């Protein structure tokens, strides 16, 4: 187990290096950010001067070399917009994003597991249709729209929750529901289909024929085995949540990584973009590793050599 972990962690290094190269190249191709940093009436002279001062007139290989040297020292460079080191700025946002991701995931799990199991046991009934149909709608609803509707209903009309910002548990609920529903929809469908498959297998039938109660069969025998694909999707979705919650974060002005990244892209703040992508990539890898470990717990037959 320990050797497996160590090996996986060593595998991260080339992956992260490749990612950093791709991100750096993309940002380089995206162009010179100086004109965006200066006001509309800046002269060409001002633009040239700042470009030189920031070293942006140097060839790709020189800029990339400098970037890599910094990176090896744990330094992602300085944000043009904020004039401060990029990595601390990104890490500062991580708690807010993780908080939102975890809350959304809990909401998704709370909705998806009972709904998925329930509709699998009632396969092809009208209740099952309603549940799967609801999941399709949940998946199709754009986060942006859902977020604004939730604000209008629960904050403006009913006054139950604050409109935006971060702080108390009440602030967390609406954005977590916004993000959680989409994931819940996907998970519900997944749990349902894997449950349907497992319920038709021999050992479930054997258990039933031994006279065990339905509830016991479903939750003690079948459910556990249907969790493996759910773990995969949870791991993947959590990493998507970390990097992709930008629209929801913007709607609820949630000060997370997504909001920082979208602003950095708009202002071509290279160092921030690079550091954010790097941090998100690391999280994705870690989540995948976690998923592998949970597989082992769920099904001891899975071995990693």
């Amino acid at each position, binding site marked *: 187990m320990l050797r497996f972990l160590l090996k996986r962690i060593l595998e991260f290094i080339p992956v992260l290096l490749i990612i950093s190269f791709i991100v750096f190249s993309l940002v380089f191709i995206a*162009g*010179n*950010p100086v*004109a*965006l*940093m*200066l*006001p*509309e*009436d*800046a*002269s*060409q002279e*001002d633009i040239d001067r*700042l470009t030189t*001062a*920031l070293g942006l007139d140097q060839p790709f290989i020189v800029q990339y070399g400098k970037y890599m040297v910094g990176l090896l020292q744990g330094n992602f460079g300085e944000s043009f*917009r*904020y*004039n*401060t080191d990029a990595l601390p700025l990104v890490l*500062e*946002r991580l*708690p*807010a994003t*993780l*908080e939102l991701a*975890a*809350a959304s995931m*809990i909401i998704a799990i709370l909705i998806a597991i009972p709904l998925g199991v329930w509709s699998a046991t009632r396969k092809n009934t009208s209740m099952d249709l309603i549940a799967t149909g609801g999941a399709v709608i949940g998946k199709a609803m754009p986060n942006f729209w859902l977020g*604004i509707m939730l*604000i*209008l209903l629960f*904050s*403006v009309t009913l006054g139950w929750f*604050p*409109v*935006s*910002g*971060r*702080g*108390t*548990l009440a*602030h*967390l609920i609406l954005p977590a529901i916004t993000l959680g529903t989409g994931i819940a929809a996907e998970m519900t469908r997944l749990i349902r289909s894997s449950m349907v498959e497992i319920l038709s297998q021999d050992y479930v039938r054997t258990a039933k024929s031994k006279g065990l109660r339905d509830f016991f069969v479903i939750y003690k025998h079948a459910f556990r085995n249907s969790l493996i694909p759910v773990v995969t999707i949870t791991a993947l979705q959590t990493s998507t949540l970390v990097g992709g919650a930008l629209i929801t974060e*913007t*709607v*609820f*002005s949630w*000060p997370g990584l997504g*909001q*920082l990244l979208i*602003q950095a892209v*708009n*202002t*071509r703040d290279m160092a921030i973009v690079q550091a954010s992508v790097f941090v998100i990539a690391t999280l994705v890898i870690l989540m995948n590793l976690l998923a592998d470990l*949970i597989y082992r*717990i*769920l099904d*001891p037959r899975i071995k990693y050599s």
Partner: protein
Amino acid sequence: MGRPKRLLFVSLLLLILMLAACSSDGEVDKGSAQEGNRVLTIAMGSDIVSFDIHNHNNTSTEAVHDNMFNYLFKRDDNNGIQPELVDSFEQIDDLTVQMKLKEGVKFHNGDPLTSEDVKFTLERVATDETLKEFPNYKQIKEVEIVDDLTFKVITYEPEPSLFHRLSRLGSGMLPKKYIEEQGWDHFLSNPVGTGPYKFKEWIRDDRIVLEPFDDYYEGKVDEWDEVVFRVIPENSTRVSELLTGGVDIAVNIPPSDWDRIDKNDGTSMKKETSNRTIMLILRATEGYPTADVRVRQAIDYAIDDGSIAEHALKGGGIPTKTRVGPGNFGHNPKLYDTYNYDLEKAKALLAEAGYPDGFEMTLHSPKGRYLQDAEVTEMIAGMLSQVGIKVNIEFMEWSNFVEMRTAKKNKDAYLLGLGNSMFDGAYSVDWYRAERFEGETDYKNDEIEELLQASASNMNPEEREKQIQQIEEIAAEEVPHIQLYQETINTGVSDRIDFTPTQDEMIYVPKIKRK
């Protein structure tokens, strides 16, 4: 079976603990309207950039800084320039002004303001080329200290805009001793100024909190115990916060929400003319139809600025033929609140220029940068089609738009909005200087060139004003840029406070009163 189950249970428990730990480190929100009346909350569209007053060009950043830093001079309600930190001043010669600071001005850390601080502040921005405000202060050669409170500001050339420069953020006074002892990084996370409010907290992309400064030189301003600037980028969220009483002021409200705010109990819209003018910049480069002055005039005559202001902007715009609006030095009232519109004349001009059946042109436009920019561009295309000009609109995301401009890849025309933070018309008319836009708009007028040259160092304000006005008149006739309208600032305000937006888009808290 037992062990794995326990592991699963433990990992779930860990997840929940992680969540709990995350939630508890957030700042507890103090809603403004509900909880006492002594907290003022303002919703901005973007976060401030930093507390380095010299290294940004961002209006909402300055709107926060304005409450923490004092300038040497300040524009009054009528845009006249008045001394602020300066007690008295005297122009010694064309290059030198001697000034004396007010007595008893203190920084938030208790240090007194002296000539040393002035020298430190102004010479920093005038010499450090990497600072974004450097271009606006590089005219200053040095600050010579006479005594603790007296100093001379010396420029390289006669500098008619010096007082305009000294009434902006770049002359917000920095504490020399504090910065030298503690370092810049410490200053940037614990900024200190001389202003009525002092720094309390900044959570990036969330909020900036200020509190009153007890030793403010004009006496403590204690209308508000705390001022919170909240960052809410999404328009509809900002509106919802205002409607629910979460914030007292919400900036940049789009026209579609004006009615909602006005009809809601307890909130209303407040509008003020901004210093930003929206215009079409045309190519005068040889080979383009718009190189012909008659074609440019035809376009000007074909566009109904009044209708744009009334319909696309719901009244949120004032048609103009000049970029130098009221309140700016060199404003020409003859060219303001008026516009050309005559379809027959436009057609005649086109025929005369050799385009009786019109022609095809490309119009670049940013989308989402200015109030209703896409709608305005579409209206313009519709209006031009009436005289036979077929407009191909190219909407661009802002960063691509900026790149198109810097790469000089503009085709026939693009839509742009320009303000003037200097409130000096010289900066606006400088856009007609040929050298500056070579390969981009290629407009050149010798008379304008001469007037620009003459006004740049003219220390006689009356003469200089006339020169700037004359440039505006020539440009209004030759239309290298078709001025469309001056934008309004649209702010939603809670009825519990007394606030009127100002042309410079600052939010100066001491002027905001509880009702």
